């Protein structure tokens, strides 16, 4: 399916090898050191919020990301932080710039839990293919942040068209253990350190199913089967447990990452399509002493919504991708709604430099598919699918993902209902700094790559 279409059209190339995720976050070294003699976290975040002005958004419909909806709401932020969220009666302190949001909508910044921006940047040339260290089935030693090209134009589209303020960049899914992810603020920077989300935990990207066995089976190596996938994973975990139980004095980049998972400091983001495989993976976690934070893609998650709820595992999914590979054959548009009905955690993800620009629409599509089969999900909860639920699964929900006093002022003002195809971001603030304004041609990032090229600074 998609391979053919890609040849034909080149335009929308998306990584067919949907990847999975791991998140990094510049773990704070003091915390790690307190647990054991863990090396200081290198490559620390140098991100600093840009200046903003105290702002009052008034008159808009506010979805707070946590399931709340306020009509004619007021959102206050200053010094990079949300100060207050309430109704029309919320007092606006002096010195705040008022922005009239009548007829418009406010949500938390959109968060994509599954992106390859920077490690599979555009232009999608071979020289930019930095997402899969496909030389060994387990590479927990690689870190996605060492592949991220901050000049990927995709970051700018995600901001201006998608309202994305934070995202997790994952290694690809060629490997059973693909490496560490990195969570970024979607703020342009000369360095990846300048984008790293301060304090965000790392993730470990894992993958089950077709990709690892195809990639390594095709090289005449193990794993070449699903049972091979598990055998390699289990032995790797057993070795990691031995390392973790020791003094950890000898540096071993791979085992340091796995020890971080066993310590609960690194979150497992597991690419997995089939229900039966997800059930096995959850048991592998129990056997080895870790838990999966989120299954990514999870097109069959609806078949085991009960298990996912009981194990407290999120499903990071598309609304309706299916059929492009055998393990995606049973994808259905009702996946999100059925999971919601089962009480399991839903996150809408993109795995695409195009889809990341329309996560809100994808969520709305999934909501509607549910409604047609009698599962009503309130709009305010659907907004949570691409804001707070993503933040939770990335371990950053204490500081972003919803509109609550004290959290980062990551805010989108939409020109209409974000669950409508007709709406677009009008303004996007990150830590209270206005990073995009549809009404100001200059308040739009242009990557180095696009300078002096046709279309520089266009609306895109």
């Amino acid at each position: 399916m998609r391979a053919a279409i890609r040849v034909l059209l080149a335009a929308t190339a998306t990584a067919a090898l949907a990847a999975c995720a791991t998140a990094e976050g510049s773990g704070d070294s003091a915390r790690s050191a307190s647990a054991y003699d863990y090396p200081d976290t290198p490559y620390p975040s140098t991100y600093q919020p840009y200046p903003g002005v105290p702002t009052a958004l008034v008159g808009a419909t506010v979805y707070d990301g946590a399931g709340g909806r306020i009509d004619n709401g007021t959102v206050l932020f200053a010094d990079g932080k949300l100060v207050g969220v309430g109704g029309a009666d919320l007092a606006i302190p002096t010195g705040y710039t008022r922005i009239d949001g009548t007829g418009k909508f406010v949500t938390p910044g959109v968060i994509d839990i599954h992106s390859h921006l920077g490690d599979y940047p555009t232009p999608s040339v071979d020289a930019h293919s930095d997402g899969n260290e496909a030389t060994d089935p387990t590479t927990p030693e690689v870190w996605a942040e060492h592949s991220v090209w901050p000049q990927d134009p995709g970051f700018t589209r995600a901001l201006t068209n998608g309202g994305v303020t934070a995202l997790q960049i994952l290694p690809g899914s060629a490997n059973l253990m693909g490496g560490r992810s990195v969570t970024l603020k979607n703020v342009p920077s000369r360095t990846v350190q300048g984008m790293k989300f301060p304090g965000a935990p790392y993730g470990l990207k894992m993958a089950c199913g077709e990709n690892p066995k195809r990639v390594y089976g095709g090289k005449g190596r193990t794993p070449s089967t699903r049972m091979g996938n598990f055998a390699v994973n289990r032995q790797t975990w057993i070795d990691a447990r031995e390392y973790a139980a020791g003094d950890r004095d000898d540096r071993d980049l791979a085992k340091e990452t796995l020890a971080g998972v066993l310590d609960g400091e690194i979150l497992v983001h597991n690419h997995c399509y089939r229900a039966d495989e997800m059930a096995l993976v959850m048991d592998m976690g129990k056997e080895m002493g870790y838990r999966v934070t989120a299954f990514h893609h999870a097109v069959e998650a609806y078949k085991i919504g009960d298990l996912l709820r009981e194990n407290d595992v999120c499903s990071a999914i598309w609304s309706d991708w299916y059929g492009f590979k055998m393990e995606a054959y049973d994808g259905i548009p009702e996946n999100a709604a059925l999971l919601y009905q089962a009480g399991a955690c839903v996150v809408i993800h993109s795995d695409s430099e195009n889809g990341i620009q329309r996560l809100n629409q994808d969520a709305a599509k999934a909501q509607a598919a549910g409604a047609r089969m009698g599962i009503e999900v309130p709009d305010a909860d659907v907004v949570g699918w691409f804001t707070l639920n993503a933040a939770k699964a990335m371990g950053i929900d204490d500081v972003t993902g919803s509109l609550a006093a004290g959290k980062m002022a990551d805010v989108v003002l939409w020109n209409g209902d974000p669950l409508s195809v007709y709406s677009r971001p009008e303004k996007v603030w990150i830590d209270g700094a206005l990073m995009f304004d549809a009404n100001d041609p200059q308040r739009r990032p242009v990557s180095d790559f696009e300078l002096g090229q046709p279309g520089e600074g266009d609306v895109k």
Partner: protein
Amino acid sequence: MIRRTLLAATTALALAAPAAAQDFAITNATVATGDGSAPIENATVVVQGGKVVAAGVNVQVPAGVPVSDGSGTWVTPGIFATVTDLGLWDVGAVGESNDTTARNSPFSAALDTAPAVNPRSQHVLISRAAGITRAAVTPSAASSIFAGQGSMIDLGDDPQAVRRPRAFQFVELGEAGGRLAGGSRTAAHTLLRNALREASRFGEDSGLAGGPSRPAEVTTGDDIPIDPRLVESDAERATDVLLTRFDAAALVPVVTGHQPLYVHVERAADIRSVLGLRREFPQLDLVIVGASEGWMVADEIAAAGVPVIANALTDLPARFEQLASTQSNIGRMQDAGVKVAINAAAMEQPRYLPHFAGNLVALASVPRAAGLSWGEALASITSIPAEISGFGGQLGVLKPGAAGDVVVWDGDPLEVSSAPVRVYVDGVEQPLENHQTGLRDRYRDLDESELPKAYDW
């Protein structure tokens, strides 16, 4: 269970002989005719004998025609998806189920999708349930710049999917074409010219009606003359040919202008080169596919009268040939007078067509962006692709005489939350069940207290 009864009834219907077209009328609906006009509220659509006989207000429903109340619904023509690979594959990554490409075939231009199309492909069924009633089906190029010949199909629940075989030839002339031709765009253009001249000569030899293309005067702009043997259709079949006989024969209708040539290019410069082909091959019936940078040369495309099947939401420089891509591409081309349809291949699935059209409407309220009106957006996935496909006035439009391809939606059809509730092809109401609806119904709950899920069907 009720659902089982319904399914049983549907199955029986599916097994029955192809149903005859039903006469029907839908009243009190919001009707969008697909011709670019705005939707009409409280309107009526009448279909008789498989054809639309009326659409609009002040319509008298003829006596004897069953009427259904369309209050709260929207009615449009069926979506016309171009270009697609519908019916050519089951699972993309399962090679044996995928007939979109033929990397190891000795043939290229002769490859014909018509005998390969599977009307029962799940993607046909799923697309039908999404309101797509017609599609252009194209092979993808793999062994040559020529992908082969596309078909026009309907998505009706009957064995006869292909309605026009060999409807167009598809060729790659941008980055992909360069790779396929041996490594460069120069190779692609040379291969194309050689092929068209071989076909021209082959056509002359065949004595087929229509005759060969007659080259116009070719000037190079300087004092180096072109060897006349390269421009006068002089390829020798016996001694100097690159095309197989089948491939040469397949290109005869292209060079004579009897079969449209769909050319995939993205870059502005490549588009200009394609438009320039008509100086050498005046009878080429060109359609440009892709055209991410089309907006930069929109005036030239419009002047040439060449229609475009364009990428709608491509806005990243995924390839160097797409540096200037923007979601405003289609709006700007349309403003320049280009006939533009939304390219169904530039999205994950053809069923996203209405949503991509809706996104172009959204652009109309984005400062400095160029979008489409609602009516234009619907036309870009109905009447315009039908016109480009050679079915102007017959498909993709609700007007007297057009085919009774009608979709009744539960809301604004361009909105992501809307879906069809009834779909007709040639006046025949279609089943909307498929693998996905079966899974949905089975897993509506996870109750296995009596029997495993495998018994719930």
